[in-house]
């Protein structure tokens, strides 16, 4: 990490060397923040944020259903099903999606059969494909911490809430979600952080359009052999991730205080 930080102030001396650090400058950062690369960073953030949000929107109801509705004896089956994709290599299962999504692949066949889509499927090498792959690859990382948190939640608390007059939705927002918030935070971070640096999913499914920062950094290091620029980009990416996490963290803290303030009780009686 420190090397990367150090390298990022260096430069690429000539075609045959990857790095020189005799003159330190911020020049590489200017380059890394220039509009072409900047766009890639923003695209990466967009894919990561949407991917994280989608994982949560799919993962939470699933984890809730699994921990509340499915009898305990059948839960291991579902947990195993979620984990099966993890048994194969990340790259392999992503390539698997290429086959499924190919213009004349299985999905195209099914859609065609259903009459929903008649021409060749053009999902592959688009941002949509990347998004799909991202959700598929990272969903288990969201579901598992959520499931653990929900499973540990005493069902009696939800009943107490309903007993006191709160409907399902209120119970969800006032009791369930606050109490599983550590699991939610864990799931969000577990998906968002590795996803932001991921370059396999984007490369395999996105082609040129799915260029993500992870891929860009990889190119600078191993293709262009410009370690200084690569390092600068890596630092920018880490800072961006940190900024996003901090931003949402602050929102969460402020939100929490607002909720606390709104449900406060001030006894008229002197304590």
């Amino acid at each position, binding site marked *: 990490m420190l090397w990367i930080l150090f390298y990022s102030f260096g430069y690429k001396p000539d075609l045959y060397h990857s790095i020189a650090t005799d003159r330190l400058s911020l020049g590489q950062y200017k380059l890394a923040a220039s509009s072409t690369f900047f766009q890639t960073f923003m695209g990466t953030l967009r894919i990561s944020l949407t991917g994280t949000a989608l994982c949560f929107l799919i993962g939470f109801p699933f984890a809730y259903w699994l921990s509340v509705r499915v009898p305990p004896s059948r839960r291991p089956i579902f947990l195993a099903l979620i984990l099966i994709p993890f048994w194969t290599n990340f790259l392999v299962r992503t390539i698997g999606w290429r086959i499924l999504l190919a213009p004349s692949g299985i999905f195209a066949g099914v859609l065609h059969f259903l009459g929903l889509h008649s021409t060749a499927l053009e999902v592959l090498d688009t941002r949509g494909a990347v998004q799909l792959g991202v959700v598929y690859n990272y969903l288990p990382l969201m579901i598992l911490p959520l499931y653990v948190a929900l499973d540990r939640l005493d069902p009696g608390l939800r*009943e107490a*809430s309903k007993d006191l*007059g709160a*409907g399902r939705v*209120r119970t969800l927002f006032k009791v369930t979600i606050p109490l599983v918030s550590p699991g939610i935070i864990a799931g969000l971070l577990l998906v968002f952080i590795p996803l932001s640096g991921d370059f396999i999913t984007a490369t395999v499914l996105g082609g040129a359009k799915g260029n993500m920062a992870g891929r860009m950094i990889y190119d600078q290091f191993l293709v262009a052999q410009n370690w200084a620029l690569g390092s600068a980009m890596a630092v920018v990416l880490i800072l961006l991730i940190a900024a996003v996490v901090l931003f949402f963290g602050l929102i969460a803290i402020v939100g929490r205080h607002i909720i606390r303030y709104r*449900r406060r*009780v001030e006894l008229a009686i002197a304590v």
Partner: protein
Amino acid sequence: MKDSDRAERGAVRLVDVSKRFDQTFAVRSFNLQVRPGEFLSLLGPSGCGKTTTLRMLSGFETPDTGEILISGKSVAGLPPYKRDVNTVFQAYALFPHMSVAENVSYGLMQKHVARGEINRRVGEALEMVRMVSFAKRSPKQLSGGQQQRVALARALVNQPSVLLLDEPLGALDRKLREEMQIELKLLQSQLGITFIFVTHDQEEALSMSDRVAVMNEGEIVQLDTPDTIYEDPNSAFVAGFIGQQNFFNGVAQEQGRLVTNELVNLSSSRKHSQIIANESNVLASVRPETISLQVADNAATHGVSLNRIEGELASIAHLGDSVQLIIRVPGRSEIISKYSRSDAPNIGVGTTVSCSWSDLDVHVYPTSTNER
């Protein structure tokens, strides 16, 4: 009885309610009328369907058949959050992410009560259970008894027409439990709210309730005042479940006025709750506190005597306000006799004693198959 027929706030009626899980009945043809403002206990061994009955009242279980009326109105199809009842859960179920005061305010918040009124009512409820000084604490920082009080305040602050309590004192130690029993009973009579109180502790049920419904295997076996339940149990099950008993197996003579076996004959002058056929197998019961002991004279009659049996005093146990004496009788299980502390006979362990009782204290029940 006429009062409870009227549709009144706080009245509860269960009409022929049954509930099955898989193939077994948890609650079976359950009929019960609770009067407004009554303190009624559901008493029975673990697994007899008490919690299931309570959960059908609160709306967390749906009866398979039958009808439930609260304050005169059928609650069929009403979800828990629309019912005018509140529950004190066995494990308290306080919200760990809220303070004590916030916990208590939860129900009022759901009903959109004005903030000023919430503040006032929460204060009153906490005052009622003497927890005002803990208002800002987290439930995790409270002892079991204190959590219990908060759970009570959280339910009562909503002024429900019926309060359901599922073994609320089960997790407390004995001394605290006895204190809370008194507090609960006082609160209930002050507030006039109907309490339906579930317990497997017969002492608790008898000491607190206006009426007790003794349950076994999903059915009510006896519904009476605590006094009647204790004095006049209507079956061997109730007799055995409530307090201690000395049971004698035997064969009935004279429609149950006489019970004979190879060790002792018992005569009973009580009216039997069930018709007893001559020569049928029966169970006679005698309460320990009605058995008196004398030192047996040496010229003991070795035949079978009436309402009297001889044995050796095996142990003396001091239970605080009472003394329990165990007498070993050859050929049967021990006989227990109980005296109040001041009346206890001065007899040493190992002495041969004769135990006797009056025919007024002998209950006779037919031997049925579902007895414990």
